[in-house]
């Protein structure tokens, strides 16, 4: 099939492959949180506290039903076993429902902020996270690559100074760097706000003032991510380029007396391609780090949603967020794959084969 449309076939095969990965991810996503011993309803009830016992029993049943954690008979009452404990729904059955619902775009109801829908929570959180991370990652990627390439090509003093710096930046954990920034620029010498995504006295709106305030609060978190990402990217690019510089085609280009800038460009372009893949792959790690940064700066976004959800075994929310992250990373990888396919003639040619 598609024998005469190599491109289409390429895209299809990649797509299929990513779908497989997606399924695996979803499965992990569902079962891992359930390895733990915990039962959310008990937690909810314990937190609700209270002095009336039959009220507690009523609640237990209604929540078990609500979250589909217990078997229900025809008349809609929770089944109870000999010891009068409710009969729990099997994990597989829950998994089935979960898949079915998520395909319908319903990620369920959060246990902890019942009756709020997970999708609701994520919807409000995601824009912040994207606004924080996308620029940081992309800009850092470009800046890092260019600097790395220069370091590799120029060598000499620039390299000697720049490379250790990049390496150093790369060795500081995201959040630790964030903490330092908060302490130095937010508290010790408070020129930037230490917490929050915008001024407390504002409501989100499209006013200039709000935008300004957002930007003002944006600097520290952005920098804390940007600088470290840049370091990491630069290092990768540097060694990539050094490798490219050693290749035959660069030698030949030099023998041909092709101008330096041209050779530099060759090297840069070819080193860029693996870097692109590298970016897509390391996205998962980056996002992870960035989420913790959100926590440090008390910055709105899914970072905190995930973390508090974990604290409270809020399965639906955990899964919602992790699923979101996974999917976005998968999509990123997929796009990069396709992109590479068009940018790199080697892959393009390889397409027809296998």
């Amino acid at each position: 099939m598609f024998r005469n449309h190599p491109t289409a076939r390429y895209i299809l095969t990649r797509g299929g492959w990513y779908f497989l990965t997606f399924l695996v991810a979803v499965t992990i996503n569902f079962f891992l949180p359930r390895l733990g011993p915990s039962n959310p309803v008990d937690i909810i009830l314990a937190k609700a506290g209270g002095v009336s016992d039959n009220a507690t029993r009523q609640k237990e049943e209604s929540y078990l039903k609500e979250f589909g954690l217990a078997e229900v008979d025809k008349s809609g009452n929770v089944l109870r076993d000999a010891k009068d404990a409710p009969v729990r729904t099997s994990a597989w059955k829950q998994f089935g429902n979960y898949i079915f619902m998520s395909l319908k775009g319903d990620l369920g109801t959060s246990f902890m902020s019942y009756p709020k829908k997970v999708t609701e929570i994520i919807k409000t959180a995601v824009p912040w996270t994207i606004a924080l991370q996308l620029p940081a990652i992309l800009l850092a990627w470009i800046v890092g690559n260019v600097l790395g390439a220069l370091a590799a090509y120029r060598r000499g003093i620039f390299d000697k100074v720049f490379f250790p710096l990049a390496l150093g930046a790369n060795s500081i954990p995201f959040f630790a760097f964030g903490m330092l920034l908060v302490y130095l620029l937010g508290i010790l010498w408070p020129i930037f706000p230490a917490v929050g995504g915008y001024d407390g006295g504002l409501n989100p709106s499209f006013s200039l003032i709000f935008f300004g305030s957002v930007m003002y609060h944006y600097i520290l978190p952005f920098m804390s991510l940007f600088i470290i990402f840049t370091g990491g990217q630069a290092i990768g690019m540097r060694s990539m380029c050094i490798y490219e510089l050693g290749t035959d085609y660069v030698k030949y280009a030099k023998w041909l007396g092709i101008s330096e800038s041209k050779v530099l460009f060759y090297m840069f372009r070819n080193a860029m391609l693996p870097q692109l893949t590298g970016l897509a792959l390391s996205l998962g790690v980056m996002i992870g780090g960035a989420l913790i940064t959100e926590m440090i700066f008390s910055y709105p976004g899914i970072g905190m949603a995930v973390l508090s959800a974990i604290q409270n075994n809020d399965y639906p929310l955990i899964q919602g967020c992790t699923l979101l992250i996974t999917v976005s990373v998968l999509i990123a990888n997929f796009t990069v794959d396709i992109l590479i396919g068009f940018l790199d003639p080697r892959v393009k040619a390889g397409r027809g084969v296998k």
Partner: protein
Amino acid sequence: MPIFEVDNLSLHYLTRFGDKIPAVSGVSFSMEKGEVLGIAGESGCGKSTLVNGCMGLFIPPLNPTSGDVRVAGESIMGRTPRDIRKNVLARKVAMIPQGAFNSLNPTRKIKDLAADMIASHEQGVNKKEIYGRLRERFILIGMDADSVLSAFPIQLTAGTRQRCVIGISTLLNPQVVIADEPTSALDVSTQKSVIKMIFDLLDKGIFSSMIFITHELPLLRHVADRIAVMYAGEFAELGTTQQVIFDPRHPYTRALMGAMLSAEPGQKQKKPTAIEGAPPNLAKPITGCRFAARCPEARPDCKTTTQVIRIVGGREVRCAYAE
């Protein structure tokens, strides 16, 4: 007046730890118009280094120690890298590297690579006329220009790639072309056609003389007018093809001939089995004959007395006892 002269050229590498490793020492030869000089020797004997030296291309850590290189009488030594790049490379001395598989930028179309090359030697040439020139040259050298030029290397066969390399390298009609194992990594039939092509170009006068480098002495039999046998950075023997192939005087050349005849083709990377031991480590200072350690006919004093070039039977030999 010789078109290309190398005068007692010595080169060394500067290691990152600051010590010099002599790679080529005291090499001299000169070439007339239309002449083909073959240089043979096992891998690591300094051929490739010599090549860079001949082009005045000193990329660190390679540095000139002494000597001079002249193209049509004018020296190319001691020039700025930029000058070398613009006026020597590909114009006076061009290079046809080995392993055509990788020497073309995989993400650049043939024509673009060539265009880049021309553009970086000549000011104010527009793409259109460049492509024009390319087409006619490629047709001239007998290639299906249109399909090849607008292809990526990966889409071409090894043979075609090597032809492209040759085509590009000779675009600016250089005086001297250095072909470093131009046919390695090619199957026998392709080898023949590629060699043929190179000589066509020579006959067409697109370039006027050629240095042909290989480690297969026998291969030179058909291509070279004169042959230099290189060992451990020195010329061991330099004479006409007749002399070197059929009547070698230097023990190394003899051994090499023996080895090559016994060695089956295809096993290129293999060292001459007939010769015991390995070439000396150039990083350490060497006294006496560099081949002495492996020489079947070594005399006691070979290890101590440094060998100089002698004229024996009408060719240069670096051996005190050759006659």
